[in-house]
């Protein structure tokens, strides 16, 4: 499938420190393909390099090495930008303008004029649920409302590729639900959506593929289904007609035992302990098997495992690699 976004060994070093300047690698040899027409999640803890990656793609920062292409054109290509929408993280706009005026200005920058321009602006604001507030100056907007305006301006040019940096940030639960629906609608219309997030449930709901960054490095990625659904981390057994005392015998084996009703229990068994043996014992004690199902790894499990492994820290994202640090996982390709 054609890639909407391609990066090859994309690397960004910043200089930090005023008195003793030293290099700081914000992104380390990222190689990534985002297939056209899919929703792709760029995941990672705070400070993982997600925003740096998106800024590199939008040429708000320049790479130290490596390259990237959007819609088959080099990053920064002005014609390609006509086909791309971008929502920055915590967007801020000219607060002396109304939402209508801001979007009108941006629409004209995309080359739209006249009644068609006004309709486009109106439609974009309608899509994100901005009503009569569109005639208020943006200085009067809340964070969530600004986020909606940010989304509207990202959709203004009917983009083929939509790049969203933390699109759910600042939104209330209804707003989040609406944005999720919006992203799925964009996908259904055949557009590519690349978004960054550290909220894994959003990625699980929306993405076909994800890439996980930690400490500026790509630590894992691929199809969400491949990453999680095939990996079983244990078993959930539900039994009935059994005494609590009998069930408590399995406390040394089970990772969790919950009473869900009178004489009915759920036991969570680790992968290394076959459920057949426990079941045999329970049935011998007069219990009845109600259900057995595998416990599949969630994206969160996968995320925590890989981020911790990559950073060697419980507080993933704070331990950052210096330039030239050895990176065994960087350079692998995801897409």
């Amino acid at each position, binding site marked *: 499938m054609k890639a909407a976004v391609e990066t090859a060994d994309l690397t960004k070093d910043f200089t930090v420190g005023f008195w003793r300047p030293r290099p700081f690698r914000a992104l380390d040899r990222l190689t990534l393909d985002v297939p056209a027409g899919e929703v792709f999640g760029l995941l990672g803890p705070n400070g993982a390099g997600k925003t740096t990656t998106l800024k590199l793609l939008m040429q708000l920062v320049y790479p130290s090495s490596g390259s990237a292409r959007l819609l088959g054109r080099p990053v920064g290509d002005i014609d390609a930008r006509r086909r791309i929408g971008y929502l920055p993280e*915590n967007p801020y706009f000219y607060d002396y303008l109304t939402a209508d005026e801001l979007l009108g200005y941006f629409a004209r920058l995309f080359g739209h004029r006249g009644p068609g321009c006004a309709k486009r602006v109106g439609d974009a604001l309608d899509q994100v649920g901005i009503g009569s507030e569109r005639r208020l100056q943006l200085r009067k907007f809340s964070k969530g409302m600004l986020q909606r305006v940010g989304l509207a301006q990202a959709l203004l040019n009917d983009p083929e590729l939509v790049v969203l940096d933390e699109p759910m940030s600042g939104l209330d639960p209804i707003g989040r639900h609406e944005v999720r629906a919006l992203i799925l609608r964009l996908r259904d219309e055949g557009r590519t959506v690349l978004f960054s997030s550290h909220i894994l449930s959003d990625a699980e709901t929306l993405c076909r593929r994800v890439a996980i960054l930690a400490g500026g490095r790509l630590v894992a990625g691929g199809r969400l289904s491949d990453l999680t659904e095939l990996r079983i981390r244990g078993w959930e057994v539900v039994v009935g007609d059994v005494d609590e005392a009998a069930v408590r015998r399995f406390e040394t084996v089970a990772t969790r035992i919950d009473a869900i009703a009178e004489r009915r229990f759920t036991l969570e068994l680790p992968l290394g302990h076959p459920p057949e043996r426990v079941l045999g014992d329970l049935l011998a004690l007069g219990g009845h098997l109600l259900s057995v199902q595998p416990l599949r790894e969630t994206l969160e499990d996968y995320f925590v495992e890989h981020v911790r492994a990559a950073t060697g820290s419980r507080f993933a994202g704070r331990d950052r690699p210096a330039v030239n640090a050895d990176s065994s996982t960087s350079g692998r390709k995801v897409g």
Partner: protein
Amino acid sequence: MGTIGLIAVNAFRESVRDKVLYNLVFFATLLIVASYLVGQLTAGQEAKIIKDLGLAAASLFGLLIAVFIGIGLVSKEVERRSVYSVLTKPMSRTQFLLGKYAGLALTLVVNLTVMTIAIYGVLAWMEWSSPANIKAAWEAPALDPALLKAILLIAMELLLVVAVALLFSTFSSPLLAASLTLGLYIVGHFNADLRNLEAVVDAPVLAAVAKGVYYALPNLAPFDVKAQVVHAQPVTLTYVTLTSLYAVGYIGALLALASVIFGRRDFK
């Protein structure tokens, strides 16, 4: 309208909606009108005082607008991150910068026009209300069109100062950019001393360095013809044209440098 024009109109709108601008224009106009009262206290010098104060007010408040609004146009955008959503639209960074410059230039020209109308308005009132024997003592007629030469050169100087402000604001914080611009403005008015340093000190190397700095820094003293105009001394059109061309050349160089710096900048 092209991309630069759209950005310019938006920058103009930004300035127009800035309360600072209204305060500056209000005080400038107030000062010009007040010059009428001061003129009344000086027998036979009324028109001269009004011209002196009027041109000085236009120059000073124009400078304040150029520096304080000019600095904000780019550095405030970077600081507040509004630049992220704009620069990712189909435009080059140079177009963005030129649009911003054109927008502030338009703001300055409009404000200078307002101040000019105020000066000529006060002078017209003076002309109409003064008896013939008092008018006979004036060095130049009240509604002397030569004032426009001084105002044109004030405009060119301010456009140059805006270009300086824009250059500094592409790589420094608003406060630092304002300080640097004001510093360069002051140096620009006194840097003729650098050229003449060899006559004062016996250090050829230092004198050569000083001369190099003199040629590199903008020379703003030639833009000040207020005294000549007020005292009815001739200011030739050739002088006005050459000085304006110097400003245009310098502005071009400053914008090119600003464009190079801004074009390479990372927005972290």
